[in-house]
């Protein structure tokens, strides 16, 4: 039943504040709404029961293991919600930044921004940060715009952005959104971007190279320094996609490798909740020479007092209304403070340990496109199972759901057939991982013994194998 099906005329929910004034202003006819909005009429209990029941149909980190490659579904510490509930942070009106008189009242909020930016600089080896971008893709757009501004300021004529064929879809989509053509460079047989092909693709017309380290296969490119040097020799800037930072915290910093711009995913590496798809946060860090292009809402400290910097002409402008998803930044800050320096290094050690453990346990049962040590995620393939038994990665994914295990990422990266990308993260215990491996092994055995049975999975979830074709051909996206 939907919220509309539960509606009953005359039911009231929330009681509103009193109307204590006598004004009876009338709206001019041509400005008035003609028909009432067909919102439901429900009691508060109706609403609470309905959404509580909906929530029970969800998988969530608090209940289930999510070995989703590229997503870093680590545990979200509850202290984060407590910090976000501090009224003195959650009730601040954003327009207070527009007026010096009010700035003295928001020194706490501004200090959070300053602390966060400084910590993120040190973690990544960058010189300045902007917290404005509200998600990874938003950060990518901001980063490429910064690079674009740099090139335009120098009068460089740039046309292309290079991405590897293993890249996340947001990379080429971002390049196109900012106005660049995409050159895709193939990965070599070791699974990293082919150095020779990269050299051939590079030219003075390339504006930027977008890479993630380790890449989406969980593999570290040993030529990363060479790649940076080659790019810089053509005045192409290096962009670091921070989606995989969980593998290298405290061990490698994109700034030290030679990257000029980086974005981070606070909702991945820094344990802020995914919220069912958002809000995220994608802060962008830059090297000093790009500082002048940063979005026009920057803070500065003078005699222990935080102020808003005067806007500068070279800035790319605003990419968000204010400081991005500020309440997400606050959660990430709590996480960084609790975990600390050694803790962050430990995060990566355990993330890489967990992923390699899974790789080692499953390599006999699945195809390994790259049979060598990985970092925080590993990619398996169901290619043989698909070819010989007709059991695809999708079927394995559905099988796992019946055991309260969320499926790994499937069909990504695009360069691996029947790909299953597994990222356990560091917050999973050995027991949890052993159970996952056991079910993955059971699945591969079942595929060989009874491939037919897979089309019935999942059996215990609220629905099974929704018809996506019907959803697209007979579009129903709102209840009329």
């Amino acid at each position: 039943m939907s919220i509309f099906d539960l509606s009953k005329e005359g039911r009231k929910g929330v009681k509103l504040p009193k109307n204590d004034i006598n004004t009876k202003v009338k709206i001019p006819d041509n400005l008035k709404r003609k028909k009432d909005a067909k919102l439901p009429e429900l009691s508060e209990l109706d609403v609470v029961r309905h959404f509580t029941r909906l929530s029970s149909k969800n998988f969530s980190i608090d209940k289930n293991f999510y070995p989703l490659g590229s997503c870093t579904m680590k545990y979200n510490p509850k202290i984060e919600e407590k910090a976000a509930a501090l009224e003195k942070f959650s009730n601040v009106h954003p327009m207070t930044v527009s007026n010096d008189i009010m700035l003295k009242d928001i020194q706490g909020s501004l200090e959070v921004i300053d602390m966060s930016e400084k910590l993120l600089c040190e973690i990544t080896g960058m010189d300045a940060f902007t917290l404005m971008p509200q998600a990874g893709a938003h950060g990518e757009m901001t980063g490429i715009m910064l690079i674009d501004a740099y090139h335009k300021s120098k009068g460089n004529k740039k046309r292309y952005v290079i991405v590897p064929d293993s890249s996340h879809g947001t990379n080429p989509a971002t390049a196109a959104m900012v106005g660049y053509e995409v050159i895709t460079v193939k990965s070599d047989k070791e699974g990293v971007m082919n150095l020779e092909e990269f050299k051939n693709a590079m030219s003075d017309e390339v504006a930027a190279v977008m890479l993630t380290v380790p890449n989406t296969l969980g593999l570290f490119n040993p030529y990363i320094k060479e790649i940076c040097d080659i790019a810089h020799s053509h005045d192409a800037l290096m962009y670091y996609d921070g989606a995989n930072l969980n593998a290298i915290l405290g061990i490698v910093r994109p700034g030290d490798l030679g990257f000029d711009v980086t974005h981070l995913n606070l909702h991945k590496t820094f344990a802020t909740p995914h919220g069912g798809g958002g809000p995220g946060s994608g802060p962008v860090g830059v090297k000093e020479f790009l500082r002048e292009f940063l979005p026009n809402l920057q803070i500065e400290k003078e005699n222990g007092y935080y102020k808003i910097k005067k806007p500068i002409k070279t800035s790319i402008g605003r990419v968000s209304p204010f400081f991005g998803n500020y309440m997400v930044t606050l959660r990430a800050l709590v996480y960084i403070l609790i975990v600390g320096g050694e803790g962050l290094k430990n995060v990566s050690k355990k993330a890489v340990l967990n992923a390699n453990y899974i790789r080692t346990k499953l390599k006999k049962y699945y195809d390994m496109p790259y049979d060598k040590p990985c970092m925080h995620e590993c990619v398996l393939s169901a290619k043989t199972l698909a070819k010989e038994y007709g059991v695809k990665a999708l079927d394995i994914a559905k099988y796992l759901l019946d055991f309260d295990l969320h499926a790994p990422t499937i069909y990504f990266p695009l360069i691996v057939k029947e790909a299953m990308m597994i990222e356990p993260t560091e917050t999973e215990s050995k027991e949890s991982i052993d159970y996952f491996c056991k079910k993955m092994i059971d699945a591969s055995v079942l595929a060989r013994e009874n491939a037919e049975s897979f089309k019935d999975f999942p059996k215990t979830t609220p629905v099974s194998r929704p018809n996506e074709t019907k959803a697209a051909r007979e579009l129903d996206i709102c209840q009329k």
Partner: protein
Amino acid sequence: MPYTPHTKDDISLMLKEIGLKKEEELFDIVPKKLRAKSFNIPESMSEFEAFEKLKNIALKNKTDKVLFMGGGYYDHIIPACVDALSLRSEFYTAYTPYQAEASQGTLQALYEYQSLICRLFEMDITNASMYDGGTALAEAALMSIRVRKKDKVLLDRRVNPVYKDIIKTYLKTRGFEVVEVGGNGIEFDKDLILKEVDDKTASYIFQNPNFFGSVEDYKEIIRFLHDKKALAIGLFYPISLGVLTTPGEMGVDIACADGQSLGNYLGFGGASFGIMTAKKEFMRQIPGRIAGKTVDRFGKEAFVLTLQAREQHIRREKATSNICSNQNLMALRAAIFLSSIGKEGLKELSGLNMQKSNYLKNQLSVINGIEIANKAFTFNEFVIKLPIDSSNVLKAFAKEGIYAGIDLGKFDKNHKNHLLVAVTEKRTKEQMDKFVQLLGEMI
């Protein structure tokens, strides 16, 4: 170490399985010369210590003031059930609903959110949320350029200045033209808009009520735009739609909004979401995730993410946008908010805002020296022209625990000593009378 459960035994067993002796060997693939040059992050601390640290920083904020500030972000009630339900960990620690069978809660909530928004705005289609009102407008501008295959967008001067900045940032890099139109007034000058619409114009973007609070009739402009095959893009204020003309009624092609007013905290601007709705002919051009209803293999009602072929993970550089994450949890909060407020509740809430704000406006208008700058009808915001320095007014009010409004002189030199004042259902007669009294005394 916080949040990693590995014991010494676990580690040695796991390393043995992998065939390594020490944890450090896991990073043998990273050459020593590429290792971090520094990592001066403070030592770890307990939950208690971290929370105390943040609490002490929070105490430096002195923002518990009575808010008469708006400018796109409003002090509205948030029913307790919005927090209680959205903070259920099954909602907030869930992942993006790519595996539909594991996410029916999120997906049905999104479908209901989409339905509520379509009914509120009287539009055919919507997506599952964008980042905020400003970026939603920017994406709408880009969409109009794609759809009409033209390069120019007309932007009404009375759109929120912060959002105007975002639109220009988004359109600049590909050389699309953004032209501010409509004259310099608090209300638009229709002729100045119409004469700018030519065959290079993809769309015209406006805001209703506008940034200054004025509510106007855009229907004639919209008809004109359509005759010239350009699109009408509007930014609306969700709470006002309880009583004001809807974008559907106006014939707007793409209607956007910021969703903060629908059950989301002010959060220093960082706890909101963007609404984007459109006519059904733009179904395949709209960016962002969309939930759809279908059936599963047993014919049971089921929800999925649909039309994913528009999105970046499939279309890559040909995607409608690069957007991946939405503001899912905020959209969920909005759905809970609208469900709790309900049909009659929204009308009443909207009415309260309108009546209370017009009460204050009327009371202020009789103070000698104060002028109401809006000539048009206002919903819950209006501009007062002060005969004295606005900074002095703001300072004096702040001392009394009140934020009197937004100093428009900070956004436009032509609006020196103009204050943008907002009134919501949370403001009492007592608070408003005090406002009038304080201002009267200063003048």
